[in-house]
């Protein structure tokens, strides 16, 4: 139980570091002078000490939504698969609930975009609604097909089962699901082929456009929400698609887990440096690939049993 709480705290603490790591790596690869890996923490503490500027046009939603963007994601952290096999974990929560909690957070984020009466906010919300509507079916299908391979619909239990019996006999559908989930990881976290987290240019913005009118504490909440969201996806990928190292001694297991997270962050950084951002109407093609792979994964598992 203590390990469980400690792991959740560790994930919350690590999450800004991971995003800063991606940014640092990208700058390094582009021959820029890299930012410090601790930049995320600095930004956070600075935002906490600043005053909040509320736009005159907004309503109560601006005061409510930032909390409800963050709290479902924090709740999701409690339901993730265990990091080491001795750890306490919530076994029963299934893919639909996890997707639902993430969507709840996105729902309030989109409302936040529409609340400030600026055209940027609406633009971001509209694009986010479009992307997340297509992400949701792929996400549910992928997680369900993995958890069926693991012979348990609960995601936590599925992660553990996969590490014990790696599904060699379902390798085809496992790989399909893995490809699909990686695309979703990129799409849901607004990384480069789908959205560029660094620019503030109206042609490319999705996530940044919705939060343009936030400042201070509320912005800190939203920023930590996006880093925790990356952490959730990365750790789901680590536990479901790289299911090894759970049986090591606890400290080593945690170390392996953190290495896996940074490996995923490394992959994302490499992908970001090597691809250009897609036009908005090309994004469905990418998500279509994710949907098709998740569909294929479920069908191969269902029908062929492979």
């Amino acid at each position, binding site marked *: 139980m203590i390990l469980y709480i400690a792991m959740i705290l560790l994930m919350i603490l690590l999450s800004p570091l991971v995003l800063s790591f991606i940014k640092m790596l990208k700058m390094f690869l582009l021959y820029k002078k890299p930012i410090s890996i601790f930049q995320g923490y600095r930004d956070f503490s600075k935002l*906490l000490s*600043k*005053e*909040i500027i*509320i*736009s*005159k*046009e907004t*309503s*109560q*939603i601006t005061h409510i939504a930032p*909390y409800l963007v963050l*709290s*479902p994601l924090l*709740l999701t952290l*409690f339901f993730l698969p265990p990091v080491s096999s001795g750890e306490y974990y919530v076994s*029963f929560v*299934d893919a*639909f*609930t996890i997707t*639902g*909690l993430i*969507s*709840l957070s*996105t*729902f309030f984020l989109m*409302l936040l975009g*529409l*609340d*400030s*009466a*600026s*055209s*940027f906010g*609406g633009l971001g*919300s*509209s*694009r986010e*609604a*479009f992307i*997340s*509507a297509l*992400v*949701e*079916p792929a996400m*549910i*299908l992928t997680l369900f097909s993995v958890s*069926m391979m693991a012979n*348990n*619909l*609960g995601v936590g239990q599925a992660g553990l089962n996969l590490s014990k019996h790696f599904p060699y006999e379902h390798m085809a559908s496992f790989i399909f699901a893995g490809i699909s989930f990686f695309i979703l990881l990129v799409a849901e976290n607004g990384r480069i082929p789908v959205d560029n987290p660094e620019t503030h240019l109206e042609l490319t913005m999705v996530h940044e456009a919705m939060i*343009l*009118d936030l400042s201070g*504490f509320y912005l800190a*909440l939203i920023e930590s929400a996006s880093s925790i969201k990356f952490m959730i996806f990365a750790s789901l990928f680590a536990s479901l698609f790289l299911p090894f190292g759970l049986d090591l001694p606890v400290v080593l297991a945690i170390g392996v887990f953190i290495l896996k997270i940074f490996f995923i962050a490394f992959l994302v950084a490499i992908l970001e440096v090597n691809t250009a951002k897609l036009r*908005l*109407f090309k994004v469905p093609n990418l998500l279509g690939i994710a949907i098709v792979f998740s569909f294929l994964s479920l*069908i191969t598992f*269902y*029908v062929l049993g492979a």
Partner: protein
Amino acid sequence: MFVFDNLSILFLFLILLGVVPNLFYSFGYLPHIKRKAYYLIHYFAFITSMAGVVVAGNALLFLFFWELMSLTSWQLILSDIEGKSTIKAARFYFFMTHFGFMFLLLFFLIVTDGDLGISFLEMKSIAANFAYPSILFFFVILGLLSKAGAVPMHVWLPYAHPAAPSPVSALMSGVMLKIAIYGMFRFLFDILGTWQVEWGVLILIMGAISSLIGVLYALSEHDIKALLANHSIENIGIILMGFGMGMIFSSLHLPKLSSFAFVAALFHTFNHMSFKSLLFMGAGSVLHQTGTKNMEKYGGLIKSMPITAFTFLLASISISALPPTNGFLSEWMVFQSLLASSSIDSVTLKLAIPFSIFALALTGGLAIACFVKVFGIEFLGLHRSVNAKHAHEVNGLMKMGMILMSLVVVSLMLFAPFFIKLFDGAIKGLSGTTIYTQIFPNIWSLHSINNNGGVVSPLILLIALIVITAALYLVFRSLNIKQRVFHTWACGYNATPRSQYSATGFAGPIRRFFTWLYDPKEHFEKEVISEHKTKFIDASFSVHVEPLFQRFIYEGAVKLTNKISYFVYRLAHFEQSRYAAMIFNMLLSILFSYRIFVHQFSWATLALESVVMIISVKVLLLGEKR
């Protein structure tokens, strides 16, 4: 005469839950209705007839109350006539509801053997001896699902619901559609008894297509009530998916799984009643304050109408199936019953089910997009018209209605175990299997019935969300942060109502992605300055989406009927002998088909009768070529 078993009482309870808040709302709305006595008479007759349908114990009473329900709701649509479109909508509704009624009548004439007074139990034995049970099944689904609004019999909904006064739309969408679901349960269990696996697959596929079509057309809609009506199609689709899975499992002899799926369908029936009534009430309040149904004319209403806005937000979250609301719970159950299909052997069935899972998941995603659009454009931002600027909160009775209905939504979430116990009781009365103790071992968590299935605990999710949010808020309070109010930054310009996103713009990317389905008619006009393409004084853009089904099936059917009737007209008009011959041939064909239909079928007699028919038509009707 009347039945009062668990199913009837359950649906009486549904009507009660739907009607009591609606009464408050309706009396609050009354000052704005011109023909008050007319409205009230039909309103109460409508409620009575709905209660009558669910307790009717024989065919005659069922048909009587069913027809009374159709006629009173038809008159209620006409109680506030706003021009020709209302009359057209009412006529369309009248036609569709009698289209369904005709099939119900045929169904009952067959299963009662002509004696409309016998009970459902006696009908079951007659139905069991009938040679073609699939025909009975098709009569049932054509009769009932045209009322429930499943694809392809859904076309009347987006016309009829917006035309009715708002309390009536809430009742029609919230309660009346569910009466058709009651009919599905009653007829399939009590009259048809056993069913074939294909029927379940058909219902499942109809459900999957309805849910997708409903949400996609809802997204392209700007008329708020038509949008909600399209969402009714979506939710009926979700209910039918649960129902279809129940039928599939039942015909595969998996009683527990089948009960679980039927409970899911019933739960979603209740949930849809609660949040859809609430949404229609909220839409009615907004419509009443701003005087328009066009979403582009709303905006910023949360400041002037907080109670409407927050109850509407609750219903939006619930209908988007976001945890921990009641809408999420029932969709979760439908998902679980779809996933329980991994134990089925048949490969074709196994292929149909991932498609349904996909349809349900995509529906969920699109519903979120749609309700962000509705809530965001309607209540957030700046007012987009003068009327929206001067809107204020509605009167006490209407507020009372909305608050009561949101209490129903919340109690369906909080007291889910209690409600599921009721549903389980109703299903037990029909199929004899109880699963309550398996899905609710304790009141905290809802278990799936299949092996290694998921678990969801609505109360724990809700409490955890509240605790985490409260903790974050306490952090905020303890930091003692200063606040300052300033304008929205709009690149140096002022943020004006016209610079905001519109509902059309919001749905733009999705509309563009699904162009093949919508086939939108776009009108773009601009007044340019001295022939510069990019510099213009004034521009207008509008999109109109006409439903595909309406264009192909309905208008095609109208054209075909016109052609046939023109042919008949040319053949027999002003020629009495031919006219008589036509009647004779018609009688002959009816007698022959009755014989085939009711008695045993054999190819020899069919061939003989066809020859007789052809000769008779040729000799008597067509005659020699002129």
